[in-house]
């Protein structure tokens, strides 16, 4: 057995866009244990719910994360709708899913670019982000914002998208798909990418389940966990939905799952556009949540399942808002994936989990 050394990794590190700290316990170059630490950017957003009108808090909720901003406003709105028994108009349900799947595409492409940059493939990083820019342009055309959309609200959405505009979005996605396939071919067939990712940071299905992983991280280990499978709103109207799975559980499999999910999102958007009915896009939300009323909601965010809890107290302020983000659930799995790897592979393993620390700390 080699001499044990503890190397602090983060909270400031070139590969980490956000601060997370790991104490890496090494035997020679091999990591035998990793102890995580977060809490450097806790913002107290859950506490803020006690001082913000529950309808206006949606603007705070979407700022939980800059990448999943629409998803968090969607999840919070769903929790409020469950709390107050609000029926969301069908057109709004479809529009929400279109925006949400576009967010998933933009999140995965952002991540793909960052991952490529991290292992030194800068041209791939630039091409991926060039393609992602088109999604941001769609956001700007349909909602007015590129990152924070402020379009989702309890009861529905603030603005409609014309059917002709929806068709135009499908056309943009069709052209994007061709270019995206070329990028994926480069990514998944390049020998240097394979040598950095195949067999690295393997997480078995059993360990992934034991450690409560969610999202593409879990699905890359063969766990069929995807909130869209059991969703009761417009997702349930899809002809078929199968989560993208791999059984390899390594960094390469995690990349592959996310890449396939972008294609899957394009298919979902096309189907939603084909099926979207005419009608209202927002139900009126009146009154305050009842004293003691509680509700849970689950959302499949780009990084995995997010879990929301709200409790009313009879006023326009909520008693408690709780969000458990996907990265919070994936931290134990990340530690398990790091154990046993080489020190040089730690950055890649962390990146393929796509951690979002701002979300996690709220």
């Amino acid at each position, binding site marked *: 057995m080699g001499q044990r050394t503890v190397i602090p990794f983060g909270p400031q590190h070139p590969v980490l866009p956000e601060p997370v700290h790991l104490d890496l316990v090494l035997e020679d170059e091999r990591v035998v244990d990793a102890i995580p630490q977060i*809490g450097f950017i806790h913002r107290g957003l859950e506490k803020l719910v006690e001082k913000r009108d529950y309808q206006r808090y949606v603007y705070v909720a979407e700022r939980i994360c800059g990448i999943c901003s629409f998803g968090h406003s969607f999840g919070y709105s769903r929790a409020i709708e469950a709390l107050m028994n609000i029926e969301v108009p069908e057109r709004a349900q479809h529009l929400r899913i279109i925006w949400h799947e576009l967010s998933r595409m933009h999140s995965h492409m952002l991540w793909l670019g960052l991952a490529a940059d991290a292992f030194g493939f800068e041209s791939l990083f630039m091409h991926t982000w060039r393609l992602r820019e088109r999604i941001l342009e769609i956001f700007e055309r349909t909602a007015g914002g590129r990152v924070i959309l402020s379009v989702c609200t309890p009861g529905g959405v603030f603005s409609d998208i014309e059917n002709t505009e929806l068709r135009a979005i499908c056309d943009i996605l069709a052209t994007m798909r061709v270019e995206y396939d070329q990028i994926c071919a480069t990514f998944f067939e390049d020998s240097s990418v394979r040598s950095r990712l195949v067999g690295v940071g393997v997480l078995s299905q059993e360990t992934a389940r034991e450690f409560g992983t969610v999202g593409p991280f879990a699905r890359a280990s063969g766990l069929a966990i995807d*909130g869209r499978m059991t969703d009761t709103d417009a997702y349930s109207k899809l002809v078929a939905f199968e989560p993208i799975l791999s059984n390899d559980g390594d960094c390469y499999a995690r990349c592959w799952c996310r890449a396939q999910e972008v294609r899957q999102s394009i298919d979902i958007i096309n189907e939603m556009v084909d099926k979207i009915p005419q009608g209202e896009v927002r139900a009126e939300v009146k009154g305050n949540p009842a004293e003691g009323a509680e509700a849970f909601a689950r959302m499949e965010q780009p990084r995995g399942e997010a879990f929301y809890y709200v409790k009313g107290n009879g006023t326009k302020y909520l008693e408690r808002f709780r969000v458990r983000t996907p990265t919070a659930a994936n931290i134990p799995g990340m530690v398990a994936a790091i154990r046993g790897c080489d020190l040089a592979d730690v950055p890649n393993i962390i990146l393929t989990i796509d951690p979002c620390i701002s979300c996690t700390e709220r």
Partner: protein
Amino acid sequence: MSPLEIINTPTSELLERASALKTYGMRFAQCHAQHAADNRFDLTYSFVEDATGRIVSLRLNIDPQESVPSVSEIFPCAFVFENEMHDLYGVHVTGISIDFQGGFYHVHYPQPMAQAPAQPAAKAKSAASEN
């Protein structure tokens, strides 16, 4: 949306019931603390059945000074949320598999969410604006 299933649970039965839910095939999703009546805390442990989307929660009502056993021996992933309950609310959780002893979150004020909610002030403000 899954109907609300919250099971009131005595502290002494937490581990047994959590273990039974694991045997049933449910996944630990999260746990969190919140203020309850009479200066007590409600702790909610949520579990998900992935095939159906069903959510089951165990609810403990505890005194803030009371210790709660950790479920991290049954669900290793729980250590994140149990450390969070301790660091933000000051809940005493014993036997956490990775116990940071209050050092998981770097917060400016110790146990920032342990302060009683600003609800009395908020209720007054709400009543004033409704009148």
